């Protein structure tokens, strides 16, 4: 019996490890400069890459500058950027990302993992104000430079205290579903499981206590019915109508995930230019 317990415990631990493993896949400290919109010259790209490398070496974060023509606007660029980062670097890997969509005329600044806590609402707005200004001026290189300047500066300044952090959109469920289930439902699952186990044990014990108590008289086997009169007289009939409650039409599915695009927790903000 003890061996069985040990085996089950080991299986349980293995299961938890399997679910946690994806969190460990992505390594920190990577850079990406992807200029699909063709905003930078090769010299500018070289300089930006060099600055990205320097920043990453200092912080250990991921740093991404991504320009494209996806057509995302200020309203929907956030989930797109969040998903892009999560797919490539992981939902909880610390890092910063600037996304510029030339088709949709929108910019997005994303912070992920521990990096979220370095950027208060004021810092995000300051960064976005300057980047937005440069984008409106069509000075794309300077926009990227401003991004790098502020992330480097705020990293140096450290995590601000007492400042508003409403830009952070926590998605615990997406970040680590197991942790989310354990922290939010674990106590109920544990109590429920223990109650069920106790009920089963009590039932087993009582079955042992009352062993052989059931089914002593079989009425069907020991009886006979001989009807001399049998009448079924119809008296009345009534019909009732009830409205079937149907689920209200869904609005395209995944409304909750659309806010974060399934990319997990992130901070930052989006603007148009």
């Amino acid at each position, binding site marked *: *019996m003890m061996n*069985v*317990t040990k085996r*089950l*415990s080991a*299986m*349980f631990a293995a*299961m938890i490890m399997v*679910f946690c493993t994806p969190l460990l896949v992505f390594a920190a400290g990577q850079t990406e400069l992807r200029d699909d919109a063709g905003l930078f010259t090769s010299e500018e790209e070289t300089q930006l890459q060099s600055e990205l490398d320097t920043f990453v070496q200092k912080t250990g974060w991921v740093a991404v500058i991504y320009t494209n023509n996806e057509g995302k606007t200020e309203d929907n660029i956030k989930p797109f950027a969040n998903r892009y980062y999560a797919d490539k670097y992981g939902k909880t890997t610390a890092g910063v990302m600037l996304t510029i969509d030339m088709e949709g005329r929108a910019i997005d600044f994303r912070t992920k993992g521990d990096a979220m806590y370095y950027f208060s609402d004021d810092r995000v707005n300051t960064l976005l104000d300057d980047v937005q200004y440069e984008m409106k001026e069509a000075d794309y290189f300077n926009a990227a430079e401003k991004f790098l300047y502020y992330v480097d500066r705020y990293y140096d300044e450290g995590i601000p205290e007492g400042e508003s952090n409403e830009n952070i959109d926590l998605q615990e*469920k997406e970040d680590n*579903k197991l942790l*989310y*289930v354990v922290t939010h*439902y*674990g106590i109920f*699952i*544990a109590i*429920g*499981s*223990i109650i*069920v*186990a*106790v009920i*089963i*044990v009590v039932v*087993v*014990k009582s079955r*042992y*206590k*009352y*062993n*052989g*108590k059931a*089914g*002593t*008289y079989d*009425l069907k086997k*020991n*009886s*006979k*019915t*001989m*009807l*001399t*009169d*049998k*009448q*079924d*007289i*119809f*008296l*009345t*009939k*009534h*019909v*009732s*109508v*009830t*409205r*079937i409650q149907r689920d209200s039409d869904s609005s395209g599915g995944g409304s909750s995930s659309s806010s974060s695009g399934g990319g997990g927790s992130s901070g930052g903000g989006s603007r148009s230019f």
Partner: protein
Amino acid sequence: MATVNYTCPNCAAPLKFNPDKQMFSCEYCMSDFTEKYIQDFFAKKEQKENSAEKQEKKEQEKAKENAAKQAQSKDNTQAENKTEEDAVIYNCPSCGAQVVTTASTAATTCFYCQNPVVLGGRLSGEFKPDRVIPFKLSKQKAIDKFLEMCKKKWFLPKDFVSEKHFDKLTGVYFPYWYVDEQRNAQMIAKGEKVRSWVVGDDRYTETKVYELRRTGDLIVKNVFERALKSQDRDMLQCVHPYDLGEAHPFAMSYLSGFQAEKRDIEKKEIAQAVQTRINGYCQQLMKDTASGYSAVQIQSYNDKIDLEKWNYTLLPVWVVTYKYKGKILPFAINGQTGKTYGELPTSIGKLIACGAIIAVVLMALGLLGGLLFL
């Protein structure tokens, strides 16, 4: 009161009923006898002894008169003496030793010579049972049934199944009342038939109400109740069911080799309870005639008893009482079918381990469910 010692007609050794052969067997000369042969043999023997007994009675009466004069001389020479605890003392017809029994004992074994002793007077006259189901399960088969049951019980303590328990396994005929009744019954009930269907977003439910009138004869057989106060009612009731089709008209000889108890509960003491049960059964039978209804509610019911028959029946039970960790646990095995009854101890360690495994598995399933469906 006379004691009967069923002895082998060939060698005069003790004779016992053999459940495997369903015959009377002599363990010494290996002879087997049918129940009819034994009945005839002992009937003739009894006739011969009757005349001698009359003479003996006269002598005993004289002796009693003398004994009354000598106030302190009540002693063991009498056939029957009552003790303060309502126990009764007999002389073993085989070895002459005193056999102490309770007031309800009808058959037992001599403590000294182990020969079977049937206390014939206990089951004669108004106390003569109508029928008996002979033991079908030998002691060994009863033990096998017990072991078979134990094998299926995972939570029994390891040291529970012990050979020493089986030495005390005793075959006992317990007394029961069986009641057969025929009643003429009338019932008026309300029956409902419900059907529903869906049209668009609406569910329609149609309920048709009927008045159900039923009249007829009901036969309810083999409603049983123990006829012995001293034994645990649950044990005596729950060792059922028995197949009454295998019952024989009562013959004293079936008791040889087993213990037997005479009834100490009379009809009038249990009549009310039995009638209440049969009332319930009859109403259920009438209700069962209303098939096809989703709900049946009896509005009026009455019946009268046309026929009623009470049968005083002896049923075979293997009984063992054992101590386990200071607790006395009685256990019974149906002597006909092998059905077991009795409280079983549980291993706390095994139960805790089982509970822990179940809890861990449920937690794992709960987490998995959370991961998949949240």
